[in-house]
């Protein structure tokens, strides 16, 4: 009985570890004056032409100090520091997010996740593979924020080609189809003009 409990405990622990690793392994962590920002894709690796989300977790870092006193001996009195993270709510109103790819830039709308204080998401479907640059500006409770996240530099995923996960047949991308349509249209226009 005790053994079964122990096995369950270990299994649950392992599962939790896996889940936690999955969540944080490819996200960018930054600290901005008492706040921690965790930035990344909701689905990693991110694939082109697949619906995804940018996720931003904003935590306030509350530092607690506990005075400790050694009961005997030559030990020096010291302090133990504990960091407690608390999700910051309401940042969707004060933070702005922009995404840049090539020469194009557009704003993304951050919205708070349901029943997860401090967790924000912005919908985006990256249509091309490559490295995306995100620019987060504004403030958090008056603390200025001006951070750039670049997938070619930082630890969140580059957007990959969809062909990596397509099975059993690799489909042409919408962009490929668009290019072919344009080519056909040009041919039709040429033929029409000729007749």
């Amino acid at each position: 009985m005790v053994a079964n409990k122990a096995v369950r405990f270990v299994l649950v622990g392992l599962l939790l570890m896996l889940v936690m690793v999955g969540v944080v392994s490819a996200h960018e962590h930054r600290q901005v004056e008492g706040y921690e920002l965790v930035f990344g894709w909701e689905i990693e690796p991110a694939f082109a032409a697949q619906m995804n989300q940018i996720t931003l977790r904003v935590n306030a870092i509350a530092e607690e100090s506990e005075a400790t006193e050694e009961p005997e001996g030559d030990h020096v009195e010291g302090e133990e520091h504990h960091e407690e993270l608390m999700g910051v709510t309401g940042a969707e109103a004060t933070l702005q997010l922009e995404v840049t790819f090539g020469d194009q830039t557009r704003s993304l709308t951050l919205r708070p996740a349901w029943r997860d204080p401090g967790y924000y998401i912005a919908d985006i479907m990256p249509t091309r593979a490559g490295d995306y640059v995100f620019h987060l500006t504004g403030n958090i409770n008056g603390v200025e924020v001006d951070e750039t996240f670049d997938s070619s530099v930082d630890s969140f995923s580059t957007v990959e080609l969809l062909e990596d996960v397509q099975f059993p047949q690799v489909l042409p991308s919408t962009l490929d189809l668009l290019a072919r349509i344009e080519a056909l249209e040009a041919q039709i226009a040429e033929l029409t003009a000729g007749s």
Partner: protein
Amino acid sequence: MKQLRNAFVPTLRYAVCILLLGLLVSAYSVKAHAELVQSSPAANAVLDAAPAEIRLTFTEPLEASFSQFSLRSTDGSTVNTPPSAIDPDDAYTLVMLPGALPNGVYTVSWRVVSAADGHSTAGSFPFSIGVAIGELTAVSDNLRGEIRAEAVVVRWTYLLYISLTVGGLGFVVMLWLPSSLREQVEVDGALHKTLLGAWVLLGITHVLMLALQTAISADIPLRDTFASGLIERLLTVTRFGQLWIVQLILWAAIGVILLGVPRLGNRRGFYTAAFILGVVFLLFHSLFSHASAADNEGVAVAADWLHLSATSLWFGGLALLVQVIIAARKLPNRTEFLAQLVGLFSNYARVCVVALILTGIYAAWLQVGSIDALLATHYGRALLVKLIMILPLLLIGAVNLVVTHRSLSDGKGVWTGRLQALVSTEIALIGGLIVAVGFMTSTAPARTAFVPDTPAPEPMVETASVDDLDLRLEVLPGVVGENRFSLLVTGADGLPIEDATLIRMRFNHQRQDLGESELRPTHEGAGVYSISGANLSVAGDWRVRVSVQRPNEFDAVTTFNLTIETPSLPETSTPTPNVVGAVILLLVGSLAVAFGGFFIARNWRGLLHIRNLPALSLLILGLVMIAGGAMSAV
């Protein structure tokens, strides 16, 4: 005393023959130069976890005390591990149990000393744990071409005094003492002093050889060897040390006899004993030579022994001959005396020259193997110098045999001076020739050292078009290990793209989970972006995802699929084909039998006379070569 001599001398004669045959049967079984042939982990391997052990296997047995490897981290510092050691079950293999190693890239740096011929080799290769290998140097050998000048000098003087001691004794035993000419000129004392002087100098150079081998084994300067405390270790635990001690005992025994000869009645018997000890001394020299590392070591060592013996008899004989010539110039019948002396020496030298040429041909094939190796290696070039110096020696020998001998027989007194000059020139030429031999014994044989020129490898080329770009990826050499990646980026108009701000090459193995590694090539000009790296670290299918970033343009992303194979091992030595080897052995063996038989037949009456020893040795070697050739052919 006469009875004792009659019983002793024939016994010694047969002892030499039996020793020769015994050697051929029991010669050390050792292989080629110590080169790394296998390792675990393999070069450029990417491991998930630290290996339980690291094994390096070489082509020949290793000297345990002077062979080791260590691990180095990427910053070049030595990783703290237990020392490597020879596998107790395999003298060709070094093993290390590295213990816990953190993830990272490591370089195995090895340096070993061959137990066969004492030469050292070194090299290194990378492997990684938990991470892909970045830019690292490939496996390298760096001691192949290295020659110590001090080694050449020490070996030259050593060979010089070996030749003078043993060859001088041979001259006295085989030519001078049996000759009636000895009664006409008082030169025995001078010859004896020369032999003693050569013996003393041989002892000094023998000690220097010990110091030299210590310096080579421990990779320290020669001057530091005596203070290093390593000599004792070399003497007690290495094969060289064991052979050296036996040679020292032989040298001491020769000295005891030489020092005792003036007080002993039976000079010829004791000189004969000293000579035989000297010949055995040469045998132990051959047991620690390039020949001892040959595939057919029995025949190779025997041939090397006879080659060295013949050189010694020729050189040492000439050195003592010139002393006799100087002494004889005072004689009233000097032309007649010298005519007889030249006749005797020519007969003696003829056998030596034939033995030298035949064993030299065999050794040249064994250690060089090809014209390219002859021309391209230190060993081969030294052999060329040696061959060039032999030509005037043969010419002088022929002049002495034909012209000088006849002129002296005709009573032409002017030829006494010419004879002395010719013999002195021969001595100088052989002294120079031994420098070339010292050089050859200080470097790796040409067959081992020669790396044939191979045509430049063709790069692996893949092309792709994405958006408005054409990409051409070249991977050189396109095999596992270090590669050069060059990406040519051109626009739709065919013009090179020079303004890419970032190019990423991300490597993923398609079958094994090795993790992703990345290279970022730099702009080389003309639209080419290049970088080197060992990212293709194992064989198989690789996906290389290339993205090109340009200002104000969308990223262009495409995939190159590469199939990477393990590189074929560089051919560091020309293999010894059995058929060619058999033909060479049969041919040279037949010639040795023919010449040996011919020289013996000329002195048929004194078949068992020690004067016939060189010819008899040549005959026996020829028979062994024929047997070896026949066995190789089968």
